[in-house]
């Protein structure tokens, strides 16, 4: 019997422990000496009661080390998310990796008209159905902001659409202080009770500090309410090197850590022991165009590094990585998303947010989702690593009488492993010979992805919601829309 060898999970690391410790120490210094701006009354009160020094006039809190250390002790290192049916489907801990689409795009790529345009409700419904059908996209995000509804309800309306057409857990958010209350009602309708909704969380929400070092009224409100209601907030700190954060990667990491730590403190003060996710969307600010490239290698380096810091602090992580700044799903989109997804899994980022996204996090594309689904499949396979299989690794080289002694196609070991050992990509990725490719129209990946989107929209039927639950969701959403002057939702 051969000795059992464990499969190695490939991992890359950019920071030494010494470097991480220095970043965290400096971030604690920032919180103590520079402080953070908190434009939210409840937040300031929580921090003040907890022992931070408050400057009410300036809406500033100076957070002592002790508060940070206490918060780090109570914050959970593992979060389980559940799907719409109440089954556990994501365990955010260790180096587990899950993919979800880039979220909150104000625009969509329209592949029929070849333009970037404003999205409508139908775009979000189509998007939701496509994500529901894609195997390697684990979670759905509220990815598109429809423009045919009042702005104030945008956040909850997207969560509502995700719940109706997809069973996956949701990365959502709000644009208005009433939003999270509505989202909570939607979740209670799905689970049946407030208690059940807390016990089986299926929504995580973005809580984005404004760089540098500021919690706006809305995001701080969502952070507190999310913590209180077991709707895990994702801290999305977004330092932009040299524009809203120090120019160097190290300096930006200190700012990211300080902002995120202040979020952890507020969350733990609001509800000790509540889950929180160490996320982010930094960018290596482009000094030529004034843009925030998500496909820049330094952006990805910051993502990987802050993820390491999150792991060091034992908090589940997330990053906006695996997306692209291309304006349509072209070669640039493929290469930037491919590099990002591969680096993200090698870093062991728990939630990898990026699929489908183009144009600096502003434009979703269904075709890109289909292509990225295959990228995610390859990335996932990479970190499954190389498993020693069988008593003898090359059993077939010791076996006499293989088929005509020449190939392994009919060997039992081939039959046993040929599916499991490999990830078979397609239809966006072509691995046919040139002749077969030409016979099918000599298409590009983008064209094949478009065909696949059409196929999914024509054939994929998402699991339907219970009729009564669905009616309740529509009732909740309509009531909310009425507050802003819309009496009928623009649903098909």
């Amino acid at each position: 019997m051969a000795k059992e060898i464990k499969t190695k999970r490939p991992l890359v690391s950019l920071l030494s422990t010494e470097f991480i410790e220095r970043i965290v120490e400096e971030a604690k210094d920032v919180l103590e000496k520079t402080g953070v701006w908190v434009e939210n009354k409840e937040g300031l009160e929580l921090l003040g009661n907890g022992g931070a020094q408050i400057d009410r006039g300036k809406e500033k809190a100076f957070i002592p080390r002790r508060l940070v250390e206490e918060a780090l002790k109570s914050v959970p290192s593992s979060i389980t998310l559940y799907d719409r049916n109440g089954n556990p489907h994501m365990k955010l801990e260790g180096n587990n990796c899950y993919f979800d689409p880039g979220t909150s795009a104000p625009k969509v790529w329209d592949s029929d008209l070849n333009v970037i345009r404003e999205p409508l409700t139908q775009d979000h419904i189509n998007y939701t159905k496509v994500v529901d059908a894609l195997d390697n996209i684990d979670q759905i995000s509220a990815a598109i902001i429809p423009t045919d509804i009042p702005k104030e309800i945008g956040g909850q309306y997207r969560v509502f659409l995700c719940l109706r057409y997809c069973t996956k857990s949701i990365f959502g958010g709000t644009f208005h202080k009433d939003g999270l209350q509505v989202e909570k009602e939607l979740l209670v309708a799905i689970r049946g009770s407030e208690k059940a909704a807390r016990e089986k969380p299926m929504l995580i929400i973005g809580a984005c500090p404004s760089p540098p070092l500021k919690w706006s009224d809305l995001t701080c409100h969502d952070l507190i309410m999310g913590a209180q209601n077991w709707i895990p907030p994702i801290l999305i700190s977004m330092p932009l090197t040299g524009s809203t954060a120090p120019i160097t990667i190290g300096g930006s990491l200190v700012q990211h850590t300080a902002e995120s730590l202040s979020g952890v403190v507020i969350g733990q003060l609001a509800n000790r022991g509540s889950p929180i996710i160490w996320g982010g969307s930094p960018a290596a600010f482009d000094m030529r165009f004034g843009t925030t490239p998500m496909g820049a290698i330094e952006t990805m380096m910051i993502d990987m590094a802050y993820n390491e810091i999150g792991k060091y602090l034992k908090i589940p992580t997330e990053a906006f990585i695996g997306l692209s700044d291309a304006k349509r799903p072209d070669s640039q989109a493929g290469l930037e998303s491919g590099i990002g997804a591969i680096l993200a899994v090698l870093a062991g980022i728990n939630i990898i947010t990026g699929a489908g996204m183009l144009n600096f996090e502003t434009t979703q594309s269904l075709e890109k989702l289909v292509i990225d689904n295959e990228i995610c499949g390859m990335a996932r396979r990479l970190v499954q690593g190389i498993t020693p299989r069988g008593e003898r690794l090359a059993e077939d080289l010791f076996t006499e009488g293989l088929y005509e002694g020449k190939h392994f196609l009919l060997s039992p070991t081939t039959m046993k492993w040929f599916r499991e050992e490999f990830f078979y990509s397609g239809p966006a990725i072509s691995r046919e010979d040139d002749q077969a490719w030409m016979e099918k129209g000599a298409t590009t990946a983008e064209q094949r992805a478009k065909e696949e989107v059409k196929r999914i929209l024509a054939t994929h039927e998402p699991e339907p919601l219970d009729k009564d639950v669905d009616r309740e969701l529509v009732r909740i959403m309509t009531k909310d829309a009425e507050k802003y002057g819309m009496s009928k939702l623009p649903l098909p």
Partner: protein
Amino acid sequence: MDLLESIKESIIGMDREKVVELTRKALDEGIKAEKLLYEALTPGMDVVGEEFEKNIKFIPEMLMSAEALRGAMELLKPILAKSELSKAGKVIMGTVEGDIHDIGQQIVSMMLEGAGFEVYNLGIDVPADKFVEKVKQEKADIVGMSAFLSTTGLRFSDVIEALQEAGMREQVKVMIGGAAASGKYAETIGADGYGANASAAVRLAKSLTSKQ
């Protein structure tokens, strides 16, 4: 499920043992070999072929089904009329002289068998006169040649010329495949067709024989 249906399902299910066992049982029960071939075995392989084209079944699975078919054919061959055996056609396959890259050629051979062709595989490094000799001996319908190297691709024309010299070029169709081949090259050297991949080669063989 009746016996014919079970045999068909076992072909699709790649279960050689079961196919052989059921075929034997069917013959014992007095079911005609022709009926078994056309109403169970071939329809089973047709399903496998379709699923292969759709990327549902992969190469090893398709070859396993072909193996199961081969098992049944060993029982049927002594019984079937000679005309039935090679109804689809006889194919001489080989990798040309100087070339040893034959995995594609082997897959094509097995798939052709699965499609009902009688296949004689001459293996690798096959000189032109050996192709000619076998064509003559078997009265073959098709010669299928493969080459991987661009240098050995030149040998395709050697075989065609040798067939011409032997006065047999008119009786036999020539198809080529492998990395050294292309549709254009097939035209240039006067071959009857090029198969870009295994399924294309089977389609080509079927169309070449149906024209005759």
